[in-house]
Each structure stands twice: as structure tokens, then as C-alpha cells.
């Protein structure tokens, strides 16, 4: 057991670190899975409405203009926000080798955050949306999302300043950066859009600066931090090139922020603002390639572990899709590419490729790795894990391929003035059905994970399982001890 004295002269072991995080992280991750279910259901309703417009057509709360923003916002803040926060807290505690500070406050913050998302979603369903994409929640709901995040920022820095490990691991760079970037993003974007600091085109620029960066400077760094920890940790092999990992972080920090305006290609903006977005997107090849080399080269010689490790399956899937979706995204920013794919289903395919192919699997990987260590319990069913994995991979691939192919064809047809618009609409309908099917597959995987998650937080399940995710004898002895306590 590696354990060292902290600043208060207290010995903090790895198991103690995990235990200090148990309830805090479980609350955030359980919320994440519930919001993922809500987001998927809202997405399904939106999807069905596109090929069957009459579906739930007489309920005003569920019209496309309301349910679609709820889908996106519950996915970004409900699932993404809580999954990333739980990941940030556990990973930082582990890497700093310190206990999570003020757990009660963090749990209370998690509850308030959830209430904020719930009220914000209800507001949007009632028709109180702001109309600003990704910031649709009514303004009165936003403090409930921002204030709890302040607790997370403080906890993150407190852990970092109390750290035992002198070295700042690459994942910590990403986690620290997220806590600095995200509040700046949200508050600045709210000020420029919903608070009306700027109008017209400038507001659209602020909107898409935020919309792009909430993915790139919040979800992406958390996902990369998870991959940099999980892949080496699971296979027991250090990162292929630590030099490159640091280059990747700093180039990501410098370039990503500039890319957002490529979303407005073709819009009534000064050409240079879009060119900046395109250049920023092209420069993203530097961090993407360095991160890709690191993740994939670390795995060389260890791919056989994919057969036996659930964490590794999700982590490698996430890191591979990160490379692919980032290449796709960078190329998508080019004007010549946008001439075809802008305002088509291609963009939707790309967004889901990134969020459900890269970010979500890495959050799942984190949960699969950490939950047995946090709770002292084991995942109850290997079969459910396999179902979850194959549904995630299959559903995501089906969705992305269908949407991207349909989008390209749709774009080519829209560029041809001889093709009637109704023909283009009719052409997309089978692919929209495929999208609904893909959504159902993803939902099935989420339900399988929910069952497993629900069971792992049940202490009595301990006696019926075999703790294989815990590979050390100390973990096993601890489980036996707990099992005896429970049976008495």
C-alpha cells in the first residue's frame, strides 16, 4: 500500500481516498445516468417527430421546438455536467492522493444542480426557452447550475494544493483547466446572449463560440483526462510519449477556443471571423494527432486486453472515436466541405459521433473502473456490461453512418436547383427511421447500465458476486471483511 502523510500528518491510503469519494461521486454519476435516460427519451421523441410529425402532435409541451432543446440541454448539462463533475472529483482525489473535501457541501451542490436542470427543462417545455442554442434554460434556472459548480472548482483546487504527489499528471492539467475555462465560458456567453450585452451577428458569434467550446473546453478535456488515466492504468503501462501528452494539452488550450465560428460559415458575418474559426479548426490537428498517437500507441501490444476488460473497451472506443470525430470536425469546418454539409443531417451525425462515441464511453469507462473501488461492491452482471458496450457501439455507429451519409446526399441534392425540395425531404425519411432505431439501441444499452449501476450501490449484493475488477489481495480481503460484517 502506498500511503504518505498529508499536511496534517495524516496517512491517506488509496482505499481511503476512494471511500471519501464514494457518496459524492455516486450522487453525481447516478444523476448522470438518469439524465442520460431522460435525454435519450427526449431525443427519441424528437427523432420520431421528424419522420412521423403527428407523433404526440397534440401536446404543446412536447412540440419539436421544445423537446429538442430539452434533449440537448439534459445531455450537455444533465449527463455531461454531472458525469464530468464526478469524474473530475474522483480523478483529482486519486491523482492528488487526498480525500475529497467537504463532501456534504458537494452532495448538496449536486442536488441543487439537478434541481436547476429539472426546473430549466420544465421551463423550456413550458415554452420559456431563451431561443439561444445550448443556453435555452430560462435565466432564473442558471444560478442553480453555476453556484454548485463553484463548490466543485473550490474542491478541485483544494485537493490540488493538498496533493501528496509532487508531479502534476497530464490528466490533472486538463481537469484544472476545465475548472478555469468552464465558468468563463458560461458567464461570458450568458452575458453576451441572454443578458443582451451584444446584439445581432455578434450575439450569434458569442452563441457559437460557446456552443462549440462547451464541447471542446468542457466535455473534451474531461474525456481526454479520463483516457490518459484509464488506458495506462488498466493495462499497467505508462503513456507512450509523455512529452507529446503535454504538447497536446497546451496546443488544445491555445487553439480550440478559436474554432467556434466555423458553425456560422455562409452566415452574414465578416469573412475574417469565419476564417479564424477555420484556421483554429485546422490547428486542432496538432493536439488531436498528439493525443491520438499517445492513446493508440500506448495500446499497441495490449489490444488483447479488450476482450477481458470492460473499462478498456469503453476507453479505447472513446479514444478512437476522439481521433476520428476530431478529424471529421476539423475537415467539416472547411468552406468547401460546408457548401455540401451545412444545414444537413451530417452535422447532427458528427455531434452524436463525438458525444456518444467519444465523451460518453469515456465517462462509462470511468464509472466501470471506479464504482467497484468506490463502493466495495462488484458489478453484478458481465452480460449486462457486454450488452451496454455493444448497444453503445452499434447504436452510435448506426446513427453516425446513417446521418452522415444522408447528410451528404441531402447537401448534394440541395445544391442542385433541379431537385424539388420535397424530394429531398422524402429521401431523408428512411434514414430518420434508422436514427430512431439507433436511438432505441442506445436506450437499451443505457437501461442495461442503469440496472447494473442500481445493483452495485446495493450493499447486500456483495455476497452473490465475484470481485474481479479488484485485482489486488488487499481489495479482496477488504471485501471478505465487509461480507462478514454484513452476514452478522
Amino acid at each position: 500500500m502506498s500511503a504518505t502523510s498529508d499536511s496534517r500528518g495524516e496517512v491517506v491510503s488509496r482505499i481511503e481516498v476512494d471511500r471519501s469519494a464514494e457518496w459524492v461521486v455516486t450522487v453525481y454519476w447516478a444523476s448522470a445516468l438518469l439524465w442520460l435516460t431522460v435525454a435519450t427519451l427526449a431525443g427519441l421523441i424528437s427523432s420520431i417527430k421528424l419522420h412521423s410529425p403527428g407523433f404526440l402532435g397534440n401536446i404543446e409541451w412536447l412540440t419539436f421546438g421544445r423537446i429538442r432543446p430539452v434533449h440537448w440541454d439534459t445531455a450537455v448539462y444533465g449527463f455531461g455536467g454531472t458525469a464530468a463533475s464526478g469524474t473530475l472529483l474522483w480523478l483529482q482525489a486519486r491523482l492528488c492522493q487526498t480525500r475529497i473535501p467537504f463532501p456534504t457541501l458537494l452532495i448538496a451542490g449536486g442536488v441543487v444542480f439537478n434541481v436547476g436542470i429539472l426546473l430549466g427543462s420544465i421551463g423550456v417545455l413550458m415554452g420559456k426557452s431563451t431561443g439561444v442554442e445550448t443556453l435555452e434554460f430560462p435565466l432564473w434556472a442558471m444560478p442553480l447550475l453555476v453556484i454548485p459548480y463553484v463548490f466543485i472548482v473550490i474542491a478541485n483546487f483544494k485537493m490540488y494544493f493538498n496533493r501528496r504527489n509532487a508531479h502534476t499528471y497530464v490528466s490533472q492539467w486538463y481537469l484544472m483547466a476545465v475548472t478555469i475555462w468552464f465558468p468563463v465560458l458560461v458567464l461570458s456567453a450568458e452575458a453576451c446572449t441572454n443578458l443582451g450585452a451584444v446584439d445581432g451577428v455578434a450575439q450569434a458569434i458569442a452563441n457559437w463560440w460557446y456552443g462549440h467550446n462547451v464541447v471542446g473546453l468542457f466535455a473534451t478535456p474531461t474525456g481526454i483526462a479520463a483516457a490518459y488515466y484509464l488506458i495506462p492504468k488498466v493495462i499497467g503501462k505508462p503513456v507512450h510519449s509523455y512529452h507529446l501528452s503535454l504538447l497536446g494539452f497546451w496546443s488544445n488550450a491555445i487553439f480550440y477556443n478559436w474554432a467556434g465560428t466555423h458553425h456560422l460559415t455562409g452566415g452574414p458575418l465578416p469573412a475574417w471571423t469565419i476564417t479564424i474559426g477555420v484556421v483554429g479548426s485546422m490547428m486542432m490537428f496538432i493536439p488531436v494527432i498528439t493525443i491520438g498517437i499517445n492513446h493508440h500507441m500506448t495500446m499497441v501490444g495490449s489490444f488483447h486486453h479488450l476482450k477481458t476488460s470492460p473499462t478498456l473497451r469503453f476507453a479505447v472506443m472513446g479514444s478512437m472515436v476522439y481521433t476520428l470525430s476530431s478529424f471529421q470536425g476539423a475537415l467539416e469546418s472547411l468552406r468547401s466541405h460546408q457548401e455540401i454539409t451545412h444545414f444537413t443531417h451530417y452535422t447532427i451525425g458528427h455531434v452524436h459521433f463525438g458525444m456518444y462515441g467519444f465523451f460518453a464511453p469515456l465517462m462509462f469507462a470511468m464509472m466501470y473502473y471506479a464504482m467497484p473501488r468506490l463502493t466495495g461492491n462488484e458489478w453484478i452482471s458481465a452480460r449486462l456490461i457486454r450488452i451496454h458496450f455493444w448497444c453503445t457501439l452499434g447504436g452510435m455507429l448506426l446513427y453516425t453512418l446513417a446521418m452522415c451519409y444522408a447528410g451528404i446526399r441531402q447537401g448534394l441534392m440541395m445544391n442542385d436547383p433541379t431537385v424539388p425540395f420535397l424530394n429531398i425531404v422524402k429521401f431523408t425519411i428512411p434514414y430518420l427511421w434508422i436514427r430512431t432505431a439507433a436511438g432505441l439501441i442506445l436506450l437499451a444499452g443505457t437501461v442495461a447500465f442503469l440496472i447494473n449501476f442500481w445493483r452495485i450501490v446495493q450493499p447486500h449484493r456483495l455476497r452473490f458476486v465475484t470481485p474481479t475488477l479488484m485485482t489486488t489481495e488487499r481489495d479482496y480481503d477488504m471485501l471478505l471483511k465487509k461480507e462478514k460484517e454484513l452476514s452478522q
Partner: protein
Amino acid sequence: MFFVFVFIWTFAMIAGITMVWLLGWAIKNGEFQNLRAGARSIFDEEEPEGRVTDYFPGEGPLMRQLEARR
């Protein structure tokens, strides 16, 4: 609106300066030296380099060994 602009610019400046300061601090603090050791900092005696630490439930080699002993 003037105050909103002041707020945004102040916030952006703080964030930007913090990142530059962090880079300077990291260089000064030796964070970019001895990177080989840095890459290994996630391993410890209990989860050491060279050991696979994750398996499907019921399918890990150590588990089978321990179950047999039990």
C-alpha cells in the same frame, strides 16, 4: 451594458493571465522535467506498472486463484 463588458473583459483577462501564469509556474516548478517518472506517477505499490487492473466480473485470473484458495 458597460458593466457587462467590463465583467467579460475582466473575467477573460483573469482566465488568460491564469493560464500564462500556470505555464510559467509549471516550467519554474520543474513539471516538464523528468517526464519518464511523471508518466509513471499513476502507479503505486498496489496498482503497479505491469499489472492489469480491470476484468469482467468473474473472469479475472487473480479472482479465480483467490476463489480456489477460499
